[in-house]
């Protein structure tokens, strides 16, 4: 169970499929097991016939956002076509690195998709609950959506700097200046709201 040795992607692990079962971080070619990550080789004895070989980056595996997961993210920049976000939490576990996500204009709402204005839905600095719809390819970021009642802006600050209070699903109000601003507000379940 203790980490055995370091390996790099493409390195041949001294095992063939007759001796071990491939786990995560490895792939099989011509009946032999090769590593696909740079990290430590872990050999675990499951208690069944063959041990499981896997390669891990660090001693704990990191939780990665998967398709359909609810993530908490922070808006970094907006554009008439999409909003760029940094993913901070997956479910309720914080991430060590910040992954990048994109919320396209047509994924902000479920209804009236062509009338959406990103400036009236999000602003830079807002904390947003979103769902992952696609992992994206090599260069693009995670694709997220807020097209549900429970998804959208949770925490937002007004232009005066105070934290705003939601009024309805598309407006929030600043308690200091009493000005209303447009956001796509999430309907948080009452049991999750702290006093």
């Amino acid at each position, binding site marked *: 169970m203790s980490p055995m040795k370091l390996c790099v992607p493409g390195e041949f692990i001294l095992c063939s499929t007759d001796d071990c079962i491939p786990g995560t971080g490895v792939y099989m070619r011509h009946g032999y097991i090769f590593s696909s990550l740079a990290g430590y080789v872990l050999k675990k004895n499951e208690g069944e016939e063959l041990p499981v070989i896997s390669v891990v980056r660090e001693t704990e595996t990191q939780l990665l956002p998967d398709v359909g997961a609810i993530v908490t993210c922070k808006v970094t920049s907006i554009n008439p076509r999409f909003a760029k976000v940094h993913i901070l939490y997956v479910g309720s576990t914080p991430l060590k690195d910040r992954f990048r996500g994109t919320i396209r204009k047509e994924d902000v709402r479920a209804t009236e998709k062509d009338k959406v204005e*990103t*400036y009236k839905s999000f602003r*830079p600095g807002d904390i947003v609950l979103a769902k992952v719809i696609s992992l994206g390819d090599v260069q693009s970021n995670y694709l997220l959506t807020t097209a549900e009642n429970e998804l959208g802006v949770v925490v937002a600050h007004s232009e005066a700097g105070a934290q705003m209070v939601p009024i309805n699903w598309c407006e929030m109000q600043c308690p200091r*200046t009493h000005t209303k601003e447009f956001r796509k507000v999430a309907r948080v379940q009452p049991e999750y709201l702290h006093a």
Partner: protein
Amino acid sequence: MESCLKVKVGAVLLPGDVFTFIKTDTISLTESLKDEKIICGPGLRRNGDDVVVCKSGVLRHKNPNLYWVDSQQRRYVPVKGESVIGIVTTKSGDVFKVDVGGSEQASLSYLAFEGATKRNRPNVQVGDLVYAQFLIANKDMEPELVCIDSSGRANGLGVFGAGGLLFKGSLGLVRRLLTPQNEILKDLEKLYPCELVLGMNGRLWVRAATVQKTLIVANLLESSENMSAQQRRTLFKRVADGNL
């Protein structure tokens, strides 16, 4: 609180001046309790129960309850719906980049002209002057301009500028020139016939019959900002008499 604002109308205010609601402990039996409502214009901001000044200038008032601060400013901040004069700096793909004097260059799509289609591109070159309106203008996104109005017609917007002079004034001067029935333009009409385009970003464009007249009109407009009405009339009269 309205009374303490009314006292200050016409006075010079500095950012940080605060007007507080004076809570009276004793209620007068002779005066009726009035419901005071104040509309804060540019330069004033509400902060809880106070009204705070955030621009330096003169306090102005318009009945019934509108207050604002008239300030001098030369730096332009893009606002949605304002018409400005821009200079085309680059052409990249389907979008022109236009310098409007703000912190960022604005983008102008080539389809945002009257009668423009993907096949029929507008004749706009780098260095041209365009009179356009802001479609998107806020502090979080790149500003976007259009040269058509909501119905699709040009309505005075578009490329212009052959043969005239573009110069810069303060934002207050342009606002004064844009008020209906203002005296500066009335005096100018009597002097020389000329074409004038005013951009809310502080840019003015003039064209008169000859180059010399164009220069005279430009100088008159620039100097009329800081002159009183009387001084301006004497100056215009001197020009009309041909003494300049």
